[in-house]
Every structure is written in structure tokens, then in C-alpha cells.
């Protein structure tokens, strides 16, 4: 469904992505792991054109695009089929939870208000925040804000949701509620591409894992293979450094 080929991105002289390939099938939950500075967030942001990659191609829904030469119109069209969940939520601060969710429907997709509110309320219900419709982001906890952000992503019925470290800004006790929502989405067959540091999530929920370091993909495979039987030495090291539980058996 989504195929990235040879994506390349440099900030000045710093190469952040060095010809990375990526393939996501419908229903896949792909976790992108790696140490900070490995380029995983940049990869995600480039795929959604929040950063402009300077090389590579994107195949989405059977259509081909060049990262360098895609027009603004095509970017806008592609974005309407995808959704993005940010590390720091980025809820619209001047909108209530429900307005945050319906904004993309009424304004960007010209949906009638009543219909949008129906969808919005259902989306908020799904993330367990039906009673917080009229709250502003400043009145919600981090975990609640991130769940509103996920509801906002769901409301537009996207073909894929990109998650950029969705739990990294959260207090430890709030991480669980967000991961629970993501688990549920995964089990319902939502296609997800998730940059994360949550190893449990990557191991238990994702179908495939990509391990990046220094702007390249070091290892990619099913999560079972990746955690059970990693091939690359760097992957083994990474798993060892993040914790005993994930260390490959010798």
C-alpha cells in the first residue's frame, strides 16, 4: 500500500536519511526503532511531507510520486488519506477536544457540521474521552491530549496513521492509556507506522519492526524474528542496552 524507495534527506551537510526503502502493507503495524539521531522521525516526517526529502519515490495506493517533484496539490491530496500523531500532541490550542476532531472534517472536507460531530463524538468515545468533548487542551492531561490527537487522526478515516513517538512526552503513568488505544487500533486492522521507544509495544503489537541507525535501515523483519533472533550485531547490542528483557538469548 505504501512503498518508499531510496528516500534521501540531508540537513545541510548532515545526511539524515541515506537511501532508505520501506514497504507497508494494508493492516501492517510497523514499528520503527533506533537510537536518537538515527533518522526515524525524519523518515516519518518526510513520508508525510512535513520535511521535504531530496530524493526518492513514494508509491501510495498504486500511485507514484517523486519526493522532490511532488506538487503542493498532490501533497494535500495524499495528506487527506493519512493521519499523523505527534510526539507533543499538537492539538489546536484554541479548539475544544471535539472541535479538534471535527476541524479536519468540516473545514478540510466540507462535511456538514452535524455529521462531523457525530463522527467526532464516536471517535472520542473510542479513545475513552466521550465526557471530555468540550474541554480545551489546556484542561486535559498529556495522556488525554494524546488520545484526543488519536481521535482526531481516526475521524478522517485514514488509510494509514503515522505515529511519531506518541508516548515520549508523557509521564510514565500516562503511557499505558495511550498504548492501550493504539493496541486496540492495531487489533482492529488499522495500518500504522509507529516511531517508538516502547519495546513492549514493538514486540507485542507490531507485525514488523524496522531498526534504524545512522540514517540507514540496519535490520528489518517480523517482530518475532527481530526480538527472538536478531541477525545484526548492532541490533543485538541495541536490544541489550535497552534492557535485560529484550536481550537476545545467547
Amino acid at each position, binding site marked *: 500500500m505504501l512503498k518508499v524507495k531510496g528516500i534521501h534527506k540531508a540537513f545541510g551537510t548532515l545526511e539524515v536519511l541515506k537511501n532508505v526503502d520501506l514497504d507497508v502493507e494494508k493492516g501492517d503495524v510497523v514499528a520503527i526503532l533506533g537510537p536518537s539521531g538515527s533518522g526515524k522521525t525524519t523518515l516519518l516526517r518526510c513520508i*508525510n511531507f*512535513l520535511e521535504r526529502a531530496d530524493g526518492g519515490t513514494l508509491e501510495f495506493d498504486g500511485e507514484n510520486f517523486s519526493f522532490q517533484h511532488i506538487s503542493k496539490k498532490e501533497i*494535500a491530496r495524499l*495528506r*487527506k488519506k*493519512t*493521519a*499523523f500523531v*505527534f510526539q*507533543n500532541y*499538537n*492539538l*489546536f*490550542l*484554541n*479548539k*475544544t477536544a471535539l472541535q479538534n476532531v471535527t*476541524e*479536519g472534517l468540516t*473545514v*478540510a*472536507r466540507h462535511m456538514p457540521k452535524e455529521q462531523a460531530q457525530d463522527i467526532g463524538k464516536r471517535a472520542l468515545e473510542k479513545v475513552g474521552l466521550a465526557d471530555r468533548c468540550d*474541554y*480545551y*487542551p*489546556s*484542561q*486535559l*492531561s498529556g495522556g488525554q491530549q494524546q488520545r484526543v490527537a488519536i481521535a*482526531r487522526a481516526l475521524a*478522517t478515516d485514514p488509510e494509514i496513521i503515522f505515529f511519531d513517538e506518541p508516548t515520549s512526552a508523557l509521564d510514565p503513568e500516562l503511557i499505558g492509556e495511550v498504548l492501550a488505544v493504539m493496541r486496540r487500533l492495531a487489533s482492529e486492522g488499522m495500518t500504522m507506522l509507529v516511531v517508538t521507544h516502547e519495546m513492549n509495544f514493538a514486540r507485542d503489537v507490531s507485525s514488523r519492526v524496522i531498526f534504524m541507525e545512522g540514517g540507514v535501515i540496519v535490520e528489518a523483519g517480523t517482530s518475532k524474528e527481530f526480538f527472538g533472533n536478531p541477525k545484526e550485531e548492532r541490533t543485538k547490542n541495541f536490544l541489550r542496552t535497552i534492557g535485560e528483557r529484550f536481550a537476545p538469548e545467547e
Partner: protein
Amino acid sequence: MSEELIALLADSFWKILKPGLLATIPLTLIAFSFALVIATVAALIQFANIKVLKQLVRFYIWVIRGTPLLVQLYVVFYGLPNLGILIDPFPAAILVFSINEGAYAAETVRAALEAVPSGQMEAGYCVGMSYLQIMRRIVLPQAMRTAVPSLGNGLISMLKDTSLASNITVLEMLMATQRIVARTYEALALYIEVGVIYLMFSTIFTMLQRAVEKRLNGYERKGRANA
């Protein structure tokens, strides 16, 4: 204080207040409204980085902020007639005050736009909104909230600066006072009186500013209601 003086002050209070209500306040409110429009457009042009227009806006702000308001009033009212352009005192004052305050307010609004976190824009794009939709519905409303205190200062400054319009024969509060002084020679008492009336007006404007701030701050309430 003599009884005569008290009678004079009481008598002149309305004579000064009336041009205040008929000239000072309308001049301030009309010019400030135009200034807000000019400022918003100028700030958006700079924020969106529109090439040639941006240079024009920078030039406009540079000239207006770098020259005295009184000189600007003289150029328009006493200078333009040399080119055959005659403008009545009141419209001339509105024109100059709008353009002058517009330049200052443009910088305020631009700074406020830049203070809105870039994530707001990105989130807007990601839900499928266009640049203009995001500006209108997300970024501008948030920026205006940040800008209100500074804009309120601008409004109060302008209220006081309208006294300069007496120099181009606009019959506003200061000129009305000057006329009474010329007749009675009670300069101290009368100029203090007009000062008090200015203070009255600026107090009302300050209260207005607070009310607007409070309204716009709705979404920034600290603490969680019923959480």
C-alpha cells in the same frame, strides 16, 4: 479654589467632553480599526514571506516608525495641497493615524504570529487543511490573543496622540481647551481638567482591553474544570 474657578471648570467640562465624544473618540476608534486591518495584512504578508510585497511592507514600517507623527500629519494636511490633494482635517487625521498605528501594530501582530508553535501549522496540514484555512482558524486566533495586550497599549497611545490633531485644525479636546484658556487665562486648571478627561477615557479603554483579554483567554484556563 475660588467659586468662579469651580464654576468655570464645571462649565467647561461639557465643552471639552463634547469634542471628546464627537472627535477624539471617533477618531481613535475609526483609525484604530483601520490600523488593525492594515496591521493584519502587513503581518500576514511578512509571515507568509511573499517576496515583493514583503519588501514594500518593510519599507512602509521603516518610514512610518522612523518619522514623527506630527510630521506625518503636516505632510498630509499642509504638504499634499501642493500636489493639488486637499483633504479635510478629520479624514486627514484618520488617514495619518491609521497608517501610523498600522505600522506599529503590524510588528505586534507579526511577533504574535511567530509565537504560535509551528506544530499548530503542521497539525493543520496533517488533518488536510490548506494554508489559508489554518491561518484563519488556528494561527490568527491564537496570535490575536497574544497580541491583545500590546494592541491595547497602542489603542491607549493613540487616544492620547489624537491631541496632535489639533495642529491640523481638528476640533478635538485639546483644541477646545485651548480656546477656553485663550478666553479665561486659567491654563493650569483647564489643562489639568482636559488631562483628567483623557484619563477617564483611557481608563475605559483599559477596562475594555481587560474584558477582551478575558474573553480570548477562554481556552487557556488553568486547571481542569470538573476533572
